[in-house]
C-alpha cells in the first residue's frame, strides 16, 4: 500500500512539474514569436496537469491506513489488542468506542470518577491500609 502510493505520488509530481515547465516554455515562445496573436495553451499540457493532480489524489487516498491495532491499558499500562476498523467508513458510535473500552477508559469516565469530589483523606487512609496488608 505504501509503495503504490509512493509510486503514484512520484509519477503525479513529475507530471505536474513537466506540465508546469511546458506551459512556461509555451509562454516564453508566445512572448517572443507570436506576441500579436492569441495563442492558447495546448490541450496535452492541460491534460497532463489534470492527470498529475488526479494521481497525487489517488496516492493520498490509498495511503490512508486504519487505526493502530494495539492500544495501552490506561490503568495497568499493559499493551492490549485493540479493534481494527477499515479506514474511510462512516464512524459508528458503537464501534468507535470499542477502542476506548480496550484502553479501560471512556470519554465519559470523568463523570463517574468525579475528581472534583475526591475525598483525599479517605483515599490516603485506604492506601495506608492497603500498604500495611501488602507488607505482611
Amino acid at each position: 500500500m505504501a509503495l503504490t502510493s509512493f509510486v503514484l505520488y512520484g509519477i503525479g509530481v513529475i507530471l505536474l512539474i513537466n506540465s508546469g515547465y511546458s506551459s512556461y516554455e509555451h509562454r516564453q515562445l508566445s512572448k517572443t514569436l507570436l506576441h500579436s496573436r492569441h495563442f492558447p495553451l495546448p490541450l496535452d499540457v492541460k491534460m497532463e496537469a489534470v492527470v498529475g493532480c488526479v494521481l497525487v489524489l489517488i496516492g493520498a487516498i490509498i495511503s490512508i491506513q486504519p487505526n493502530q491495532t494495539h492500544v495501552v491499558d490506561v490503568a495497568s499500562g499493559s499493551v492490549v489488542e485493540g479493534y481494527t476498523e477499515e479506514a474511510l467508513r462512516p464512524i459508528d458510535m458503537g464501534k468507535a468506542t470499542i477502542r476506548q473500552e480496550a484502553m479501560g477508559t471512556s470519554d465519559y469516565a470523568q463523570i463517574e470518577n468525579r475528581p472534583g469530589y475526591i475525598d483525599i483523606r479517605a483515599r490516603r487512609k485506604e492506601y495506608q491500609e492497603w500498604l500495611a496488608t501488602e507488607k505482611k
Partner: protein
Amino acid sequence: MSLERLLEIHRSGLYATLPLHQIDSVYTLTKATLLTQLSDFERFTLLELQFYLTLTMGLDIEAKHCLDLICDRFDITKSERICVLKSVYVEATTGSTLREVSDGLVKDAKELVRLSNIAKSSMGGKLNIMQDLMAVTKRVVALHHEDVKEYTEKLALFLDLQPLDTESWYEMSEVYLANGNTDQAIHCLSEILLTEPFAYNVWSRIGEVQLMTGFKTSDSQRFEEAKRHFARSCELCETYHRGWLGLLESAKRLGDKKLVELSRTQLDKIVSGKLTSAENIDKISQILAN
C-alpha cells in the same frame, strides 16, 4: 505512549479512583516522564497528576514540591484552580476540620476576587465568588460531605447555579443511593443524560440502580427498565462489559433465553478477544463461571 497514557489518566480523572495497587507504578512513570522534554501544558498537567498521586501515597513533601512548582508558574492570587489545589493539600496534610479547610479556601478566593476587582475596576465588570469562581464553589460544596442533609442541600444549591455539571449530578445520585432513595438517584442520573446523551457508562449505571431496586422489590417492571438502559449502553459501545453483564443479569430475571444466549456469546467474545482491560476480563470470567 506513556505520556498519552498519563494525560488520559489526568483527563478522565482516573487518579481519583485508580486501583490502589496501580498507584505506585503510575507515580513512578509520572516521575520519570516529568524528567523528559515536555511542553508547558504537558508539564503542568503531569505536575497536577503527580500532586494528587503523592498526596494519596502520603508523600507530603513531594506533593508540596509539585504545588510550589505550579504556584511559581501560576500566581495563587490569579488562579482559582490553585486555590482548590491548596485546599486539597491542607485537607490531606493537616488535622483541621473540613469547615476550617473550607474557610481557608474562601479566604483565598476572596483575596483573588479583591485583587482581580482592583485590576478590573477601570474596565468595569467585577468578580463574585458564587457566580464566577465555580471551581471554588464546587470545592466548598465537596467539603461538606460529612453531614448528609447539609451536603444534599448544598449540592442542590450548586446544581441550581450550574445545572450542566455532570460530575455533581453523579455525586448527588451517589448520595441519594447511599441513603436508599433510588428514584431520586435515577432522576439525577437522567439529568446527566440530558447533557450527555451518549454517556454509555451513565446509561449502564441507571440500569444497575434499576437492577438493585428490582432485587429488593422483585418488581419485574424494574428489570424491564434495567434491560432497556443496558441495551442502550451496549448500542453505544459494542464491547461495554458493564452493559453486557447487566443485560445478562436482567435477561436472566426476565426469563428471556434468547437474550441470555446473546449476552453470553458477546461476553465470551470480549474475553477471548481481550477487548476490555485485564481487570474487567477477570471480573467477566468470574461471573460467567458461576
